[in-house]
């Protein structure tokens, strides 16, 4: 099976490609990442104008109805250009959750701001002891009237310094590692009692630790369903992250191949050495398999197959290992140049390393894939 893109999908892909080619080359990206804020509101507005922020939403929700395939197309190109703007956090994760489980008021209240690019979101689920476990939540929420009040601390919240809203997981009942009793809340990032401590991430983004003291939030989805909602959100995010990884893998392979054909040592191009040829063949195979799995997952996300979550974990693991292999070898084959901040290769390496941590590393998802398989 190979996805034949529709005319609309082709148009989406070529317009993203054109925008990024014109405005998001490696030097532009370097400037954006090094800027005070660490991302570009101008680029974000350009993404909105092009309809990228509307693409995956259903037409009901005011979107373009492109679904997971449009996310895949966009994120694949974003991966090729190392885009730092929080598309996954805002559109895929927060947008997806609001669209799927928000009340009509929440959908009407929040989705337009996402689509028009005026509001940025981040997902705050990680805690000190949580590692990759959504159920490991110590932050607490108690009901007060129609609202809830949150107390606790979240860590490693990607894009939080840029965000207008956070979706925060908090415990409404149960003990610290109980699956039940976790709920999701929408919190205004500038709410009283909410404090950020910001820092840079290895892939040139910004993140923050978030402390919550008597912070008011509104429930998103049903009380106690937070873990299941996060799992579904993670499946969608994995669709986006793996597409981004495949885009980065493709660029690394192209750059490495190109380098091996021009770099000369011992009187010949290094690409003429058999040991490096075989290495690059393995990198090529890794890319092909990752690309196929990416398509397979994105199609399943569209149809909502029953084994979807297991497949998402499988793809996260397999594409994660593929990315790691390719990134390691791309740096190695570029020699010292691969170690420099100046060349893009090291930056793809770092983004792939970062993708491999977000929502669980390849080993975590391999185990989850095995466990869900045994349970089926």
């Amino acid at each position, binding site marked *: 099976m190979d996805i034949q893109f529709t005319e609309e999908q082709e148009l989406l892909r070529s317009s993203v490609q054109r925008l990024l080619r014109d405005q998001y080359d490696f030097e532009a990206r370097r400037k954006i990442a090094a800027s005070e804020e660490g991302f570009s509101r101008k680029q974000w507005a350009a993404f909105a104008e092009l309809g990228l922020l509307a693409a995956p939403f259903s037409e009901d929700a005011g979107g373009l109805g492109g679904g997971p395939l449009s996310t895949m197309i966009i994120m694949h190109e974003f991966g090729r250009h190392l885009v730092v703007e929080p598309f996954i956090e805002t559109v895929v994760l927060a947008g997806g959750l609001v669209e799927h489980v928000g009340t009509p008021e929440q959908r009407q209240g929040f989705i337009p701001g996402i689509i028009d690019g005026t509001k940025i979101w981040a997902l705050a689920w990680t805690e000190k002891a949580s*590692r990759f476990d959504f159920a490991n939540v110590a932050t607490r929420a108690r009901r007060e009237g129609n609202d809830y009040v949150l107390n606790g601390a979240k860590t*490693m919240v990607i894009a939080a310094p840029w965000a207008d809203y956070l979706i925060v997981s908090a415990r409404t009942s149960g003990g610290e590692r109980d699956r039940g009793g976790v709920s999701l809340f929408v919190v205004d990032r500038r709410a009283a009692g909410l404090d950020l401590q910001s820092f840079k991430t290895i892939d040139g983004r910004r*993140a923050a630790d978030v402390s919550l003291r008597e912070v008011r939030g509104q429930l998103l989805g049903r009380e106690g369903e937070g873990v299941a909602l996060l799992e579904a959100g993670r499946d969608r995010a994995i669709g986006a992250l793996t597409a981004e990884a495949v885009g980065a893998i493709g660029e690394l392979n192209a750059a490495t191949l190109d380098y091996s054909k021009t770099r000369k*040592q011992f009187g010949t191009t290094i690409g003429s050495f058999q040991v490096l040829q075989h290495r690059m063949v393995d990198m090529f195979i890794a890319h092909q398999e990752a690309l196929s799995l990416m398509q397979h997952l994105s199609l399943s996300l569209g149809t909502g197959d029953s084994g979807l979550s297991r497949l998402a974990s499988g793809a996260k693991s397999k594409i994660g290992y593929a990315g790691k292999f390719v990134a390691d070898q791309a740096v*190695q084959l570029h*020699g*010292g140049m691969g170690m420099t901040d100046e060349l893009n290769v090291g930056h793809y*390496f*770092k983004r792939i390393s970062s993708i491999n941590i977000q929502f669980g590393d390849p080993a975590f998802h391999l185990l989850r894939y095995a466990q869900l398989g045994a349970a089926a």
Partner: protein
Amino acid sequence: MSPEDVAFRDEVRAFIRDHYPEEMRVPNPETDLTKEQSLLWHRILYKKGWIAPLWPKEYGGPGWSITQRFIFEQETSRAGTLPPLAFSVTMVGPVIYTFGNEAQKKKFLPRILSGQDWWCQGYSEPGSGSDLATVRTKAVRDGDHYIVNGHKTWTTLAQHADWIFCLVRTDPNAKPQSGISFLLIDMKSPGVTVRPIITIDASHEVNDVFLENVRVPVENLVGEENKGWTYAKFLLGNERTSMAGIGRSTRYIGKLKQIVKAEIPADDPAHLEFLRDIARIELDVLALEATELRVVAQMARGIDPGPAASLFKIRGTEIFQDITELTHRAIGNYGLAIREHPASANRFMPGPDYGHTASEKYLNARKLSIYGGSNEIQRNIIAKAVLRL
């Protein structure tokens, strides 16, 4: 170990415990110390007479046996002390006392020992990485000077250096290896420019060094003109046993175990996976250490270990890369964060202290399989020199 060796080991241990400067115990000594701070331990070892274990006694070495040298290496690296600058003490020093003239020995050796001169290595060039014999930096004789022009790269800590030892081409018509000379250049000479290269871990460790019409007195030529390749190869052979990095790996495995214990609950299946991965690396270290001990024993009996350094380099670097990678994985989500450089305690870093350098170490360790002769080149060496392929 003989009773004398045991006593020696205990003496070394006690000395490190009592004298290693507290000031040097920073999160990442390789990047966080100033030049002066990183020389503190050097000066203490110098006063003790232990700065140059490899050197013959007449030049200031301690006169240790091969086994004692090995014990010292093991103990200092296990304790996590910052090794004295290799470019000075293990690289250029031995070249000078082996191939240099009396005047050079008198001028340079005491300053290397005392830490007064900081040396860097002018080997690689943009077009000459693995294929070092093709260096193009030119040195043309002009009376009692050489005029040097060229571009050296990946020059480690050149920003601190007082001197650079360079491979330069003095005979452009000879075969690549035969037209190279070994030249000592004062970094303060007019025409020497250092440009930082920032690496993926955000640190400034390596540099470009540009040489434009640099006038170098002929007296700074080591040995004979056009024989530099021989000296360069001699120098690379000197690194032999330290390449395995057993002490460092052992120390990092210890830290890794503590991190896994603190970060991953024992009832999480990932805990067992980590224990298994750590065990695999421990066995790798054990096997490499046993190989190292075997080679050291052979050397003590006067047997030339041949290209054992290549084996140690390959496995030592692969093992350390595995450890840094596993450590980066062990800290989970915190692996997304990285310290900014220059490092400052005032900048916020998320998560426990033990994780704060995991990302930069992981990224920095990618260089290990590239530098000092890439691991591909080391495999070629074994294929040719050992397997006769």
